[in-house]
């Protein structure tokens, strides 16, 4: 295979003479790959913080009494968990880490269209994060991640403004990334890289970016209005002053429902890459997967009312929202069916990324189907604000987005670092995460169905068994998350050199050296074939190199 990478200097290498200039070379870099690494470190840091808050929540819930935290502290703990995980982990994680690294490489470009804007987005992310963290340090917030008015605007006596400022600033960081992706994908594809030769990760990133650009400004202005109301007591959302608190919910969910697709669509993109590579097959129904991303992006804007079935929304509006919610399930299902069809008669190898991908499919199916339950007004009125909803969204966000992120991180780790991680530990921790995840969240479906409300820290005795099961599952899950940190770090020193293309995958990113040179391509490649054009012999080669016990 022809290689486009002439021996250029790897993007990780430096010839900086002093520590200070090394720090500067990183903190002022405009190289999309280095910015991806900055994001990787900071986003994972926030993930650990959010995980810490979750640990506190799960420990409290082991007993029916509130013996560890007061109810006020408990509110602050789950709010901190929700805000960090949603705004500072799930929304940015795949676009900012994997997307930043891969979008230019996959389309054959030297960088994103606006490298300095890209760096700015990282600084905005950090600034937003510091605001949110300082809110936590100065006593926390107790509104939940949804900031519902009039509680957040009038009654809460916690650090609402600081937190909102954090989410607001972080929004601009998202917008910068989304805008950069849109422009890059439109204008910087290599010669021959037509729209229908793009890897599906690019289609997914493109659809995600459209949502980011259209939806994020709305939450920006909503949070701004909320801040104005809280600071000056001049209520836009305050019923005592003629305002309408439900308007806040409309504006908030107009962003936050599309935001759940900001979290999951990039995950879909990652899974398409993994499934194709590890079954050695052209992805089944490429166009359907590509267009279903676009359909989800569009329909995702029309369903926000399903979060407001019990918020005094008119019954007719509820029914229409319910109907459109059903429609969203169609493009989601199209993807799942196409992935399974790709697996059919594929030459499947159960490497770590593939384990995550298969786990993703199963968990997303459960998460998506329970979403449809919730989209049915009659069922939702029964289970809204219970643990059923909590279980639903964790199945899609943890079982979906995080599984996809970890799968993608393992898949592209050799490309990013030039080293292979330990496959045995990789497989083990993928299984531990799968088991721990289901132990944690499946009981929550039952809890919710039986009537356990969300956001309560004191509960009737009869729920304890399920809560204890959930908390012990969370312990397993935590172990599953910590083990990869260890062996991935270890691989940086001891890992086998990866070579350009350890998975024999297609895609331009695999044709440059690992780690890629600073300018990606010394010569811009010319693309002459579709994505996922695996040679027919690929499967046979796999079979021939199989040894008992080998992971392939």
């Amino acid at each position, binding site marked *: 295979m022809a290689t486009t990478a002439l021996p250029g200097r790897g993007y990780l290498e430096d010839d900086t003479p002093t520590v200070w200039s090394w720090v500067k070379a990183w903190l002022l870099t405009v190289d999309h790959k280095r910015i991806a690494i900055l994001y990787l470190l900071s986003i994972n840091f926030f993930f650990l913080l959010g995980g810490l808050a979750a640990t506190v929540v799960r420990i409290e819930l082991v007993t029916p009494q509130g013996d560890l935290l007061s109810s006020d502290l408990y509110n602050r703990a789950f709010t901190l968990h929700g805000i960090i995980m949603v705004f500072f982990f799930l929304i940015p994680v795949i676009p900012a880490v994997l997307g930043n690294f891969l979008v230019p490489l996959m389309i054959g470009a030297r960088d994103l269209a606006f490298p300095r804007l890209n760096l700015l987005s990282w600084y905005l992310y950090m600034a937003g994060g510091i605001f949110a963290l300082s809110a936590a340090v100065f006593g926390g917030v107790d509104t939940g991640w949804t900031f519902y008015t009039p509680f957040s605007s009038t009654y809460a006596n916690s650090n609402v403004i600081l937190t909102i400022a954090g989410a607001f600033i972080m929004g601009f960081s998202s917008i910068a990334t989304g805008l950069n992706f849109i422009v890059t994908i439109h204008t910087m594809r290599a010669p021959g890289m037509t729209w229908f030769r793009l890897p599906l990760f690019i289609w997914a990133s493109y659809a995600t970016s459209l949502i980011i650009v259209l939806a994020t400004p709305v939450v920006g202005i909503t949070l701004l209005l909320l801040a104005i109301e809280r600071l000056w007591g001049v209520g836009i959302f305050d019923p005592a*002053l003629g305002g309408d608190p439900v308007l806040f919910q409309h504006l908030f969910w107009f962003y936050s429902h599309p935001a759940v697709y900001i979290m999951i669509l990039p995950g879909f993109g990652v899974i398409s890459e993994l499934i194709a590579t590890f079954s050695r097959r052209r992805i089944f129904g490429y166009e359907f997967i590509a267009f279903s991303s676009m359909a989800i992006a569009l329909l995702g804007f029309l369903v926000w009312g399903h979060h407001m079935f019990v918020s005094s929304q008119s019954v007719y509006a509820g029914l229409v929202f319910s109907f459109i919610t059903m429609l969203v399930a169609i493009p989601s299902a199209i993807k799942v069916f196409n992935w399974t069809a790709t697996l059919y008669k594929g030459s499947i190898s159960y490497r770590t990324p593939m384990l995550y991908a298969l786990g993703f499919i199963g968990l997303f199916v459960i998460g998506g189907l329970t979403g449809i339950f919730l989209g049915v007004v009659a069922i939702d009125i029964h289970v809204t604000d219970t643990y059923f909803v909590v279980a639903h969204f964790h199945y899609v966000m943890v079982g979906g987005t995080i599984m996809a992120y970890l799968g993608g991180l393992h898949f592209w780790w050799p490309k990013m670092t030039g080293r292979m991680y330990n496959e045995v530990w990789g497989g083990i921790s993928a299984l531990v995460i799968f088991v721990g995840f289901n132990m944690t969240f499946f009981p929550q479906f039952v809890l919710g169905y039986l009537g356990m409300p969300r956001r309560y820290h004191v509960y009737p005795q009869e729920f304890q068994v399920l809560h204890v099961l959930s908390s012990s599952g969370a312990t397993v899950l935590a172990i599953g998350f910590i083990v990869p940190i260890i062996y991935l770090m270890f691989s940086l020193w001891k890992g086998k050199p990866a070579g350009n293309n350890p998975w024999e995958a297609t895609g331009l990113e695999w044709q440059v050296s690992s780690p890629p040179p600073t300018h990606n391509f010394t010569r811009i490649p010319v693309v002459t074939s579709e994505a996922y054009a695996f040679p027919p012999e690929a499967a046979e080669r796999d079979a021939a190199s199989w040894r008992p016990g080998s992971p392939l």
Partner: protein
Amino acid sequence: MATTTQTTSAHHGDHGHAAHGPELQHHFETPAQQKEAATLGMWAFLVTEVMLFGGIFLAYAVYRWAFPDVWAEAAHHLNTPLGTVNTVVLLVSSLTVALAVNAAEHGRRTRLLQLLGVTLVLGVAFLGIKAFEYSEKFAHCAGYKTPIAWATGGELLGEQECLVPGRAFAFPAEHGAATEEHASTNKTPHQLFYLLYFIATGLHAVHMLIGLTIVSILTFLAWRGFFTPTYFTPVEIGGLYWHLIDVVWVFLFPLFYLVH
């Protein structure tokens, strides 16, 4: 993926930057590509701006629908003549920006500088008039008839009126066909109208400040002879931004000043 390694542009083979001007950044292949990226980027950014103001327009629509009479009454207390003058000022500035882009395209530096200068003056004039309108409202709250009277301790306002949202908000009673006892409180929806007015025009003014900064930078660059007939993208996309601010105002003006 079968890929051949051809050089698609001559200059990257040797990395000499002879074939194009210094403004081409290394990650773009051709000046045309760079320009396309910049223009598309600005359009996408304008979309985000529209969505940002969209939230305010939605709130406006909801409350106007809920309180149509209040809206009609409240609008009478805005200074429509000044608002009209401001609309004209801003529309003319759009024209000068468009002409400035044209001047840049034809490489007419002096004309470009003049037009950008006029735009700056018009933009500052807009903000000045806007500031006067605001201060009128604040002066009324302080009990004076005009901002000047407020500063010099001059003529007092006869009736009680305070249209700045807050605890002191008081909508004058005789216009309120509504009830007398609600006339001077912030508990009526009149305050919502003025709140939205201040937020929307305030956010617009912030955008004007950014626009003025951009035009100042463009003027400086033009003065330094940075633009050529082949490279004037900053003028173009800066102009796009300026037009967007104008368009937003074109919607704000009738929605707040001309309601019946």
